[in-house]
């Protein structure tokens, strides 16, 4: 079957998922207490003024009408305007896209570069001190709150040593140097958990294949150990690793509120949380749809990538 059919089929299959997400989010938001009109007008507004503001924003319409209007907009790929700032939601999202994508990609690349060799090493030396050390590290990675690691790194590298800036984001257009110097600390902080996750998965996947016959065959061929591990075993262990990496990337793109706050990154996570706190419905709805779509898309890409690593998988 041509890949394109598979992709179409998968995209069709996401429609019910996205529909579920859309309805769920819409209802959840409208049931959540909080009135955007109050957020806009503040304490001084009279009831009458609030009513007028609601009318101006079409918030006084019946739920079903609002929902249908919104779906019609979405179908036209129009996310509407922020209730609070009045800016088009697509513009708000576009503003936050580069920082989020940059940090996500740098984090994932860094994590993979560290975690995969670490995972291979620990699987190879299963039970050794390095294995135990890596396990302990990964558990610590899970259990220390992100902001603790962030503050400690900031204190060391930005305040004491002054090697790196304390906060902020520099777009790539300002040059690779500033870009990296701003991206490196947040990425390292985020990497801690992803290194833990990916290394753990790599180790498990490697342990599953490392005793397989073809690994023994590779050794019997006279391959060196690194060649056996990376060329033969790792490629066969790639799929679960790829899955973790992909899921991680999707999570990173949906935004990392705490890290964004601590490093003052203008990312999608804060956009979403700020919107939730202000009941900025169009922004929240768009963000959830977008992140869900990204999640679904990345999953599709992962599945397609499987066939790169494993020719047995065909679509």
């Amino acid at each position, binding site marked *: 079957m041509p890949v394109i059919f598979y992709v179409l089929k998968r995209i069709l*299959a996401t429609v*019910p*998922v*996205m529909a*579920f*997400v859309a309805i*769920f*989010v819409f209802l*959840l*938001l409208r*049931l*959540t*207490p*909080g009135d955007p009109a109050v957020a806009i007008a503040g304490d001084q507004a009279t009831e009458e003024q609030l009513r007028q503001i609601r009318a101006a924003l079409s918030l006084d319409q019946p739920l079903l009408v609002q929902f249908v209007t919104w779906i019609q907009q979405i179908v036209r790929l129009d996310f509407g305007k922020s209730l609070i700032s009045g800016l088009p939601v697509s513009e708000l999202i576009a503003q936050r896209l580069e920082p989020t994508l940059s940090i996500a990609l740098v984090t994932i690349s860094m994590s993979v570069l560290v975690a995969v060799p670490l995972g291979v090493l620990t699987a190879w030396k299963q039970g050794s001190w390095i294995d135990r050390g890596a*396990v*302990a590290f990964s*558990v*610590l990675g*899970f*259990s*220390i*709150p992100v*902001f*603790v690691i962030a*503050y400690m790194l900031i*204190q060391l590298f930005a305040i004491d040593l002054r090697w790196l800036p304390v906060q902020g984001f520099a777009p790539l257009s300002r040059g690779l140097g500033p870009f990296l110097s701003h991206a490196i600390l947040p990425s390292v902080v985020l990497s801690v958990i992803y290194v833990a996750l990916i290394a753990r998965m790599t180790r498990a996947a490697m342990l599953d294949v490392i005793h397989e016959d073809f690994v023994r065959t590779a050794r019997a061929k006279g391959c060196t150990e690194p060649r056996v591990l990376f060329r033969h075993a790792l490629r066969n262990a790639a799929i679960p690793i790829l899955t973790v990496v992909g899921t991680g990337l999707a*999570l990173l793109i*949906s*935004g990392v*509120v*705490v890290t964004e*706050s601590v490093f003052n990154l203008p990312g999608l*996570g804060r956009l*979403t*949380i700020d919107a*939730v*706190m202000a009941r900025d419905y169009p922004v*929240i709805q768009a*963000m*959830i749809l977008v*992140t*869900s779509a990204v*999640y*679904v898309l990345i999953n599709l890409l992962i599945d397609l990538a499987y066939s790169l690593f494993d020719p047995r998988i065909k679509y």
Partner: protein
Amino acid sequence: MSGPVETALSRPALLSVLSSLMTGRKGVVIGVTVAVLFAVAALSALAPLLAPYDPLALNMTARLRPSSAEHLMGTDAYGRDIFSRVLYGGRISLVIGVGATLLAVGTGLVIGLVSGFFRAADAVIMRIMDGLMAMPAVLLAVAIVALAGASVGTVLVAITIPEIPRVARIVRAVILSTRSAPFVEAARISGTRIGKLMWRHLIPSTVAPLLVQGSYVFASAILTEAVLSFLGVGISPDIPTWGNIMSEGRMFFSLRPGMIFWPALILSLVILAANMLGDVLRDHFDPRSKTGRA
């Protein structure tokens, strides 16, 4: 999660499992981790007896004190004794950790079983699970807490819901691969009804992966609670939890790092212990790692 395992093992078998758990290096790991978990749980449970101060008592003249003989871990921005709050905080945090784990594993197990065993339900259930997984977890939690009001129960549910699809998927995968295993077919041939088939032959296979996932959920629940506190949608800030002690302390990190250090230390210990215990038990319940195939 030892329920199904215990019933599946008759008495002598159980004894042999226990005795093999208690010996060797595994035994040391289990001894130490259980001791750590038990000690922390006991300290939290006995907080009313052990805590030198009322964890809610404000004392505005003793704000942000460093560690001293009077206040072992210092005081917070309301002058409350951090040591007492950490002791009491363990109660809520452990309830959230254990509660979220049981809830997520329990619900996920049922959903995964149904989905893995009944083809007809599978498609619908898995689409819903995909939808839940696709939504950003923290956001979902924020919305649920805002919707239902901040209480331990709501926060628990809010933290649990995003974990359920992951558990369900794991269970489903195990069920799909186990349902065609010869021993399951043998049981079906023996006229075993679905309930017993699941309880006795399918569920035990999920124990090992669920132990690992469970220890992960445990850690992530406690940390997510901290993130929710950080965002101001956690449990009421006057009720101490490790999460909100740390969130409060976040602002005073450069001034009083102890406010984060102490709860983080205990939290890390607990999570480390839970993870190691999960791993060792997993190895133990995984038939592949036994003398299985010669």
